[in-house]
């Protein structure tokens, strides 16, 4: 057989394109090794690949107990009775707790709306809701004991979609809402509604030569991180607790945990444990409060680790959505108007639904210029699994639909789909439907041009002198075709994602940077509360410190709550915001170091007073390169330390009626070209190649940038052809909570991903960088769907696409 050629093409397939804009001036650090712009290796990389990295599930403490959560077996029911006596009587059990055992009046939590009970109170609202918790001296004992808790349910009708949620006699998922959205939603089973109206879409529709309508369905995707929810709570002598936890945002957890425990925040210490992936699924709390409650109740350390089955119930998923779109265009290929309605299913609790609505609506027409738009996005309360943050956050669902629409309009007009997109592509200076001006590069047409210009993979690669190489065919080694029924298709898509927290959120980060001489060498220590979830933030922080402080040695302090908040590791924001905070604190440290230098050595050389001074290669140098002093001599036995907050430009909320407002701070753009081969008889798809072009502003670590783009692309592929949590519409119960039936792409499903990286600086951002993690997840899915449509001629209005959709069975 010929040798396989699929898989990542890391070195060969990826390239950094020549910058189109002005490169940002980096004066500091150009002569320091391992600084910004280099592909330095991640410190955790080898450990993770060899299996030696300590994840949160590996935590251990002498004398520790194991916590177990009893979850509801039905989706919507009143709890008639709850009997824990038999569980409590089990030998080895130290504690069983229910809602009635919660220590304070604060019994609910939530990211924005505190609607989630720590333990169910009188009612359960979704399948798998925590009802009781158990601590025992062995995980199996805890599991057995939890199973002995008797819960009697009286089942209620389930709310599962917009029709059942907003029916006149619909049961309210939350009876007594008092959150700040309840005043402007049309029904109490709607979490939040955001209209965005600009121009006059109805009038503009009159000018359209073609009008295209579509209804689209986006399935429920799971983050499917490999490290299950886990952590260890250790009671402390002062009555507080120390929680070692895998999370995306320590301080957000802290804010929600402390009030439930009845402790001041300074008595809840939090340290980041090894995080095995997140993708948004660790923004909400999972077992944090439960472990702390059990630890405080028993006086012993308590560890909780979900298994895979429980993990599917233990975190929010990506909102499934129904999307209704109308696009109009003139014969010359200019969009006249877009109307759309996006219905997101938020499930039983609010989680991040309001912000997801904000993104879906404000980015609802994509990276195109349209003057007349009428957009509405809502999120429902239902009895389906709670949905919240996941990579792409509302922009993913919209992109799937508007890109399908763009292809349909192009087809109606007889235009090439790329050409049609380019005619309507936004550029710097364009207005979003929110009225906000895009004030940094927006190379949408250029990204499409680049991705289209890449060479196409050769056709019929399965043909060899020894017969068909099934590895190159749909079905692979399952040997379903030797070429019969196989048709190639090509599809394009482009997307827009906001970077950072939007809509007026005070999105700051904090960094503590210390510089001192250790063992005769200048060393910088960077301490933030940033959650390293695999994105590579710790690598980049060290690079920034090297660049800004001119040192070789950088120590990254473990992340904990002894330093101020870093904000969330989400919204593609950490390199921007915590990277910005590290840069800012380094600059402040540098100034102080130079002050010390001037104090000590200023009289030795006039340049101390007159020249612009830099820290490079462990020395103080002039901008002309003249060495003034060694940092070791400047610092001597002094340590310089700065802890400072840093913020990006403020944003403002969207008007609740018109959606107008400067809601976003930055955008991230990516375009994909998908090449697929479809076995049209069996409905099996092989994605041959997913080429991506993305503008990253400035690649702080090019290797990490390419890894993020390839990872995001693959996650988008997953929801195009296989990933979906299937919920029974009659019972609202999850039918496939395992990796046996929730399929994620394997290496054999992952195509070659050539990446073309543009670096057009955003002058508002540190080093001109752009958040990058999410954009590739947006356009990957619609590109694959477009390619499958191209191969099959089918409409395909839902994702993921399954064999039965392709075969009409």
């Amino acid at each position, binding site marked *: 057989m010929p040798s396989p050629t699929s898989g990542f093409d890391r070195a060969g397939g990826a390239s950094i394109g020549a910058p189109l804009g002005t490169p940002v001036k980096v004066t500091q650090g150009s002569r320091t090794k391992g600084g910004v712009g280099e592909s330095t290796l991640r410190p955790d990389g080898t450990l993770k690949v060899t299996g030696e990295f300590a994840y949160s599930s590996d935590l251990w403490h002498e004398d520790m107990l194991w916590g177990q959560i009893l979850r509801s077996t039905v989706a919507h029911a009143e709890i008639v009775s709850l009997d824990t006596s038999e569980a409590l009587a089990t030998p080895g059990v130290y504690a069983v707790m229910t809602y009635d055992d919660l220590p304070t009046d604060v019994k609910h939590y939530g990211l924005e709306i505190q609607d989630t009970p720590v333990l169910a109170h009188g009612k359960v609202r979704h399948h798998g809701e925590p009802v009781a918790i158990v601590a025992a001296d062995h995980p199996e004992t805890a*599991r057995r004991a939890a199973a002995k808790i008797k819960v009697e349910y009286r089942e209620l009708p389930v709310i599962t979609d917009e029709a059942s949620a907003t029916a006149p006699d619909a049961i309210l998922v939350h009876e007594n809402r008092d959150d700040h959205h309840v005043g402007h939603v049309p029904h109490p089973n709607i979490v939040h509604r955001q209209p965005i109206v600009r121009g006059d879409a109805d009038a503009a529709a009159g000018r359209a030569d073609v009008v295209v309508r579509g209804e689209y369905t986006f399935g429920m995707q799971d983050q499917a991180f490999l490290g299950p929810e886990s952590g260890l709570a250790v009671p402390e002598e002062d009555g507080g607790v120390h929680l070692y936890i895998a999370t995306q945002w320590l301080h957000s957890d802290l804010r929600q945990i402390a009030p439930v425990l009845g402790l001041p925040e300074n008595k809840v210490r939090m340290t980041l444990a090894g995080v095995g992936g997140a993708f948004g699924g660790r923004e909400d709390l999972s077992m944090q409060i439960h472990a702390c409650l059990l630890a405080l109740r028993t006086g012993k350390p308590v560890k909780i680790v979900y*298994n895979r*089955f429980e993990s599917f119930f233990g975190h929010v998923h990506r909102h499934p959505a129904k999307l209704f779109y109308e696009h109009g265009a003139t014969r010359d290929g200019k969009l006249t108007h877009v109307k759309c309605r996006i219905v997101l299913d938020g499930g039983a609790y609010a989680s991040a639904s309001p912000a997801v609505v904000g993104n879906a609506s404000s980015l609802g027409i994509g990276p195109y210029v349209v003057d007349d738009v009428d957009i509405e996005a809502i999120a429902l309360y239902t009895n389906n699994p709670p949905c919240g943050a996941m990579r792409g956050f509302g922009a993913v669902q919209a992109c799937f639909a508007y890109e399908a629409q763009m292809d349909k309009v192009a087809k109606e007009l007889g235009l090439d789909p790329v050409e049609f997109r380019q005619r309507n592509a936004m550029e710097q200076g364009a207005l979003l439907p929110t009225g906000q001006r895009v004030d940094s590069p927006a190379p949408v047409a250029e990204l499409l041009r680049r991705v289209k210009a890449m060479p196409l993979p050769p056709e019929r690669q399965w043909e060899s002198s020894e017969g068909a190489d099934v590895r190159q065919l*749909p*079905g*692979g*080694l*399952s*040997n*379903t*075709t*030797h070429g*019969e*029924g196989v048709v190639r298709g090509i599809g394009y898509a482009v997307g827009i994602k906001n970077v950072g927290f939007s809509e007026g959120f005070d999105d700051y980060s904090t960094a503590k940077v210390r510089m001192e001489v250790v063992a005769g060498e200048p060393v910088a220590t960077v301490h933030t509360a940033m959650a390293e979830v695999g994105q590579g933030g710790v690598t980049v922080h060290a690079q920034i410190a090297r660049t800004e402080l001119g040192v070789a040695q950088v120590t990254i302090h473990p992340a904990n709550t002894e330093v101020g908040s870093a904000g969330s590791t989400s919204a593609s924001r950490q390199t921007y915001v915590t990277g910005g905070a590290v840069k800012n604190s380094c600059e402040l440290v540098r100034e102080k170091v130079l002050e010390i230098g001037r104090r000590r050595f200023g009289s030795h050389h006039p340049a101390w007073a007159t020249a612009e001074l830099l820290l490079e290669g462990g020395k103080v140098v002039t901008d002309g390169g003249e060495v003034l002093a060694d940092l070791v001599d400047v610092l001597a036995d002094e340590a310089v330390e700065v802890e400072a907050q840093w913020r990006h430009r403020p944003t403002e909320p969207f008007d609740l009626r018109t959606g107008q407002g400067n809601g976003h701070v930055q955008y991230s753009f990516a375009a994909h070209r998908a090449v697929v081969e479809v076995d049209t*008889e*069996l*409905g*099996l798809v*092989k994605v041959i190649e997913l080429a991506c072009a993305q503008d990253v502003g400035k690649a702080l670590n090019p290797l990490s940038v390419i890894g993020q783009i390839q990872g995001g692309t693959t996650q988008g592929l997953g929801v195009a*052809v*296989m990933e979906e949590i*299937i919920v029974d519409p009659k019972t609202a119960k999850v*039918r*496939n909570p*395992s990796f*046996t*039936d929730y*399929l994620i*792409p*394997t*290496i*054999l*499903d992952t195509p070659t991903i050539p990446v073309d990286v543009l670096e057009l600086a955003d002058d508002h951002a540190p080093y001109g960088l752009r958040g990058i993690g999410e954009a590739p997840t947006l356009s990957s899915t619609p590109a694959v769907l477009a390619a499958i449509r191209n191969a099959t001629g089918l409409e395909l209005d839902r994702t993921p696409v*399954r*064999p*039965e959709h392709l*075969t009409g*069975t």
Partner: protein
Amino acid sequence: MDFLRPASWEEALAAKAEHPTAVPIAGGTDVMVEINFDHRRPEYLLDLNRVGDLYEWEVGQDSVRLGASVPYSRIMESLRAELPGLALASHTVASPQIRNRGGVGGNLGTASPAGDAHPALLAAGAEVEAESVRGSRRIPIDAFYTGVKRNALAPDELIRAVHVKKADGPQQYSKVGTRNAMVIAVCAFGLALHPETRTVRTGIGSAAPTPVRARTAEEFLEAALEEDGFWDNGKIITPSVAKQFADLCAAACNPIDDVRGTARYRRHAVGVMARRTLTWTWESYRGARRASKGAA
């Protein structure tokens, strides 16, 4: 849960006789998943990993005696010529790690309709060597699967080996899954031509409560091949014969709708796989015929 670790086959049989509820475990592909998910908590686990005999195979005159624990990776590497259908099926099992541990005995013991080996065993023709302290017997594969995840073993019996007929003609195996590796079959199909007896045998997986043969389809094809002297003249099978064979295979299915696929899709896919595998096997048969004629 007690963990029994017999050091020999005799000890294993004695343990099974003493504890008929004991669940045998070798590779653990099915058993460990069930235990981890808490779907099953057997009183006794009977670990067969110390019984070396189970990892051996012998190639005889007419058949291969395949130890119950011979891993799929060994079948792929070492028995491709003798058991081509089973070797193709082995390729589709899970991941390399699991193929290094799992064997046909586990598939037979679980008797899930989705077990990857079943269609190949049905198509090739096989007998399951079951043994207890009472003695040994051979169960024809056609009589082995008795219901959903049920088989013909008595409570005190263990599977020692499976005797699979050596291929006397081309064999093929196809499996539909919604990703390219590590996937439970949505449905699967095995086909073996037996030129010596001028018969064909089929096997269908995941499209009925048990693995099944499409007997009507086999009979139809055998008659069609016989009628026009195809075995002798090596002509191309007409599209209408292939289509009817495919339709009869689809009709042999009794599938359900589940999270992995619809019943309608399964029936459709089995038909497509039947038609394609017939084309591939028949092409090989014709090729082999031409080659042997050329040599003569």
